[in-house]
Every structure is written in C-alpha cells, then in structure tokens.
C-alpha cells in the first residue's frame, strides 16, 4: 500500500463524508432542493459520458437524447404498476407481455442501461465508420428516429401521450450513487491502456491505426460505456420527473449536453460535473426573474421565458470568452485545492511582510 497518494487518501476519506451528507440531505432537505440536486447528478452523468465519447475519444456523437429516451422508457415500463399502466393506455391497449411486468428499481436501471447500450451498439456498428460531422449528423438522425418510433409505437410507449404516474424511486442516493459509479468507471477507463488508446484515436486516427490501435474496438468501447450510463441516467430521470413523453428527448437535450460539456471543459470529468450542477442550479435560481418584482416604486412585470434568454446569453459569453471551459482539460484534485490555499497563504504572508518596516 505504498503507492497511495495523498490525493487518493483524501478522496477515500471524503467519500463516506459525502455519502453521509447525501443521507442527511435525503432526510432533511426540502423536496424542491432534493429534486434540483437529483437533476444535477443526472445531467452530470450525461455530461461525463459525452465527455468520454467526445472529449477523450474524439467521436462527435449527438445520440445522447435517444439513448436517454430508451433508458427512460424501459425504466418507466418496468416500474409502472399494472393499474397505472391500465390508466395510461386508454387509447390503445398495451402489449400483453408488458401488462403485468413490474421489477424493483435496481434491476430496472441495469436493464435500462443494457437496453441503451444494445441500441448504442446497433447504431455504432454502422455509424462509427463515419467521421467528424458526419458521425454527428448520423447519430442525431438515429436519435430522432428513436423519438419518432416512440411516438408511433403506441402499444408499447403510449405514443405522443407519454407515460404518467411513474413511481418516484429516484432519490439522492440513487442519482449521486450512480454518478459516483459512473465517474469511477470512466476515470478508471480513461486512465487505463484502453484510455490512452482512445486519446490516441482522438488526436490522430491515422497515426493511431498505424501504431496498431484498433480504431473500431476503442470507439465502440467508449460508445458502449457511455450509452449504458446514459440509459441508466434516463431511467433515473423518468423515475424523478414521473411523466415522460417523446418531446422530453428531442435533440435539444443533446444540444444542452454539448453546451454543458463545453462549459465544463472538454476532457475534464470533474469539469463536466461542476458545469452540470451550475447549469441546473442556475436555471432554477433564475426562475424568480420570470415573476413580477418591485424595485422601489417601480414594478417590473414578469416576463415568461426570460431565464432561458439570460441562460443562453451566459452560455454564449462562456463559450466566447472562457474558451477552455471552467476546468480546461484539468481535473479537480485535492492536491490542486491544497496548492491554491497554501499559495494564497504564502502571498498573504509575503504582502504583510512587505508592509512592515
């Protein structure tokens, strides 16, 4: 156990503390804040997995919305009670196989992830032959096809009406727990020899191939891991918001994920998490500006939609003037944090020292 760094020790110490905090938050925090924190974790998973595929492997995939939709629908169909299903499917009866099927949450999420990964593999198998923008377009296309199928397969998905009354199994332990698992797996992956091969593919496909890196294998690996976790996150999302319909998973979701990841910094997993949390919290914090408020004797009427305008302006400003994103391609580390504090102390000592005669 000699080669454990200070960083790892601090992480190991911090982890139980963090889980303790989560349990406390789950017990005492009001449901509104809990919901925001849950969303933070889900968007973080989206951003981290997008980072794996684009930031580390260089494959520009816009299919996240489709994978999330598959995860969400699988999880919704497996957790809805038979009575709720009967209430949902009043236009067209549900497929008999699904009618009485109900599973606990954990196996449901695993199946969600596996389902999304399977579809991911089916999409990636032909699409990974494409490069750059063409891959982006093809994956965007696949994700839209998934959405159109969801609208039309009424006996499975209830079509455009969506599914209502999905049990709210998702809580802070589930969502942040999965985020920690996802971060752990992705971090281990990108630090392994596979991860180095992925970065080689990102930096120069031709050179990587010439050095014997299997392009298809490594791209596929990134794609599978990413779509698995996106599927799980989709499941978590469905069991958080309790009502899903195909519109939730339009390509806007994919754009948002790109925006978050760029804001956090390409190739920085912790950056993705920080950006996702900031994005979610910020969007909620801006809510008051849409309602009426008074400054002195001046009453400003609420303007609906204003927070999205502000958000898009901020996103644009970050992209324009903070081009590397919040974290660049660096990771948050305890060593870095300690360094910041010790540096500041030294500076203070230096400055106070300088003023004394």
């Amino acid at each position, binding site marked *: 156990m000699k080669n454990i760094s200070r960083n790892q020790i601090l992480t190991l110490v911090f982890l139980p503390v963090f889980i303790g905090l989560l349990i406390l938050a789950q017990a005492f925090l009001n449901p509104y804040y809990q919901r925001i924190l849950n969303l933070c974790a889900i968007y973080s998973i989206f951003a981290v997995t997008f980072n794996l595929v*684009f930031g580390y492997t260089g494959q*520009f995939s816009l299919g996240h919305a489709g994978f999330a939709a598959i995860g969400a629908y699988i999880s919704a169909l497996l957790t809805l009670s038979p009575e709720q299903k009967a209430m949902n499917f009043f236009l067209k009866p549900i497929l008999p196989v699904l009618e009485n099927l109900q599973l606990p949450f954990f196996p449901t999420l695993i199946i969600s992830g596996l389902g999304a990964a399977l579809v991911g593999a089916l999409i990636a198998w*032909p*699409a990974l*032959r*494409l490069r750059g*923008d*063409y891959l*982006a*377009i*093809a994956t965007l*296309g*696949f994700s*839209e*096809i998934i959405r*159109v*199928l969801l*609208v*039309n397969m009424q006996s499975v998905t209830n079509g455009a009406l969506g599914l209502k009354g999905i049990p709210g199994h998702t809580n802070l332990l589930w969502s942040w727990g999965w985020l920690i698992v996802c971060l752990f797996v992705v971090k281990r992956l990108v630090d392994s020899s596979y991860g180095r091969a992925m970065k080689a593919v990102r930096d120069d496909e*031709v*050179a990587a191939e010439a050095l014997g890196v299997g392009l298809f294998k490594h791209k596929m690996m990134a794609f599978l891991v990413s779509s698995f976790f996106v599927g799980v996150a989709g499941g978590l999302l469905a069991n958080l918001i309790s009502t899903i319909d195909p519109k939730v998973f339009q*390509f806007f979701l994919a*754009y948002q994920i*790109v*925006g978050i990841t*760029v804001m956090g910094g*390409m190739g920085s997993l912790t950056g993705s998490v920080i950006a996702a949390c900031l994005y979610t919290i910020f969007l909620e914090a801006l809510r008051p500006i849409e309602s009426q408020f008074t400054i002195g004797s001046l009453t400003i009427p609420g*303007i*609906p*939609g*204003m927070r*999205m*305008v502000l*958000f*898009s*302006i901020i*996103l*644009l400003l970050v*992209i*324009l003037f903070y*081009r590397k994103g919040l974290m660049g391609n660096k990771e948050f580390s305890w060593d870095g944090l300690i360094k910041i504090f010790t540096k500041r102390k030294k500076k203070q000592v230096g400055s106070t020292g300088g003023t004394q005669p």
Partner: protein
Amino acid sequence: MTIESFLQNLTNGISLGALYALISIGYTMVYGILRLINFAHGDLVMLGAYFAFYGVALFLLPWWLAFPLAILLTTLIGIIIEKAAYKPLREFPRINLFAAAVAVAFLLENLAIVIFGGRPKAFARPAFLDQLLNIGKVSFVSYTPVIILTAIVLCTILILIINRTKAGIAMRALSKDIETTALMGVNTNRIIMFAFMLGSSLAAAGGILWAIKFPQINPLMGVMPGLKAFIAAVLGGIGNVWGAMIGGLLLGVVEIMLVAFFPQLAGYRDAFAYAILILLLLFRPTGIMGEVQAEKV
C-alpha cells in the same frame, strides 16, 4: 393513384422541396467555408417570417415593401451573429464553434418567445397568393407556382453571383483553402461575411415563403425546416450549392410522395428523412454531389 392526384402531390412536393432548397443553401455555404454546422440558420427562417408578419400586420406596409425589408433585417441579424459569435472562435477547435451555434440558436428562439410571444400567429397571405387555380383537373392555390418561381429566380441569382462575380470566385476559393486564399490578397473576413449575408437572405426569403405556404408562425417554426434543410444539404453533398438545391428538391418530393403512396406511414415521415440520410451517409458519405476528399496525413 390517378394521374391528377399524382400531379397534385408532385407540385406540392416540388414547392416544399424548393423551400428546403432555399434554406439548405445557407447551411451548405457556411459549412463549405467554415466547416460549421450553423444550427442557428433555421431560426433565421423564423425571424424572416416574423419580420414580414410584423411589417404587414403592425406597420401596415404593403407586402412588396414588407417582404424585402424583412429579408434585409434578417440579413443584418445574420451578419451580426457571424461577427459577434462565430468570428472570435474561428481559430479554435470546431466544437467551440458548434457550441456557439447552439447557443445562438437557443438565444434566438428564446428571445423570439419573449419578444414575439409564444402563441402561434396567423400569417395573412397577400390576396393574389390565395386564389385557387385549376389546370385541367389539377387544382392548386396560386402560392405554389409563386414559391417555385421565386426559388428558381433566387437560385439563379445565387449561381450567377457565385460563378460570375469576384466575391463569388473568392468564396469558392475560400472553401478550398482559407489560408492560401488569404495569401492571394482576398479579404477573408469580408468574403465570409458575404457568404453569411447570402445565406441569411435566402433563409429569410425561405421563411416568408414558408409562412405563405403554412400560414401559422411560432417562435420554434424554424427548427424543423432547419433540420430538414440541413439533411437536404447533406444529401446533396454538404459544401456544394448545386447539391443543396438537388437535395432539397429530392427530399421535398420524396417526403410528400411517401405519404401520398403509403398514407399509413404518415407518422413516420420525419424518421424517413433521417433514414434516407443515414443510408446515404453509409454508402456515399459525401452526398450526391460532394467531392471525395482524400485524407492528408
């Protein structure tokens, strides 16, 4: 299917395809030069339609004044977007440029919701575009031939600009190699601005014609035509102006015909466009007219 209803669907498809073609030219020109998928392009379509609407409904301008003014305003906004959001990022990785385009699209849509209101508005067609015409047993509303003719005229003007003027030649040179073109003494910034100008004005014209064909406008109306036009641009071979026109026309006709021949597949109409796109990308990734580029190592 009778020959009449076939012709009916064909004219319908061609007019839809002409609209896709007009919009997709903007995508293809920007992609050809900057390698940027300009996702904000679809929202310029929406802006064009709204400006025309307000020109007629609020400022009571006659349509022949309101429509060109709307195109002018939209073009101005297109240029501002290029200068403010895309130009500063030109030297950076393309994902940044793409993210900027997404942010601009977000901004335009949400601004439109705040300023124009989220509720759909009814776009009033000029009277002469609202008459029922009959040729033999084929009947159509008079806007159909006008849309097709306008699209043909605009595309011809564009082709002439690209092939016959100095700016057009410079634009073609830029799409081959920006650095070398700059060394030849071409003011690249001005030419890129010019490309955005042409693309935005065609998008605005497309938006007005779109509103004439489907006279209900809302702040998100540009998203769907934008994506379809983008598919059309890729179908034709992105970066190629002729390809964009052919791709747009093809997509419009195929979409209408598919629903006409197989009404039970109507729900899958949008998926079908993507399915064609993916099949084409797999077998001929550069599109119908695109050039195959050898990769430099």
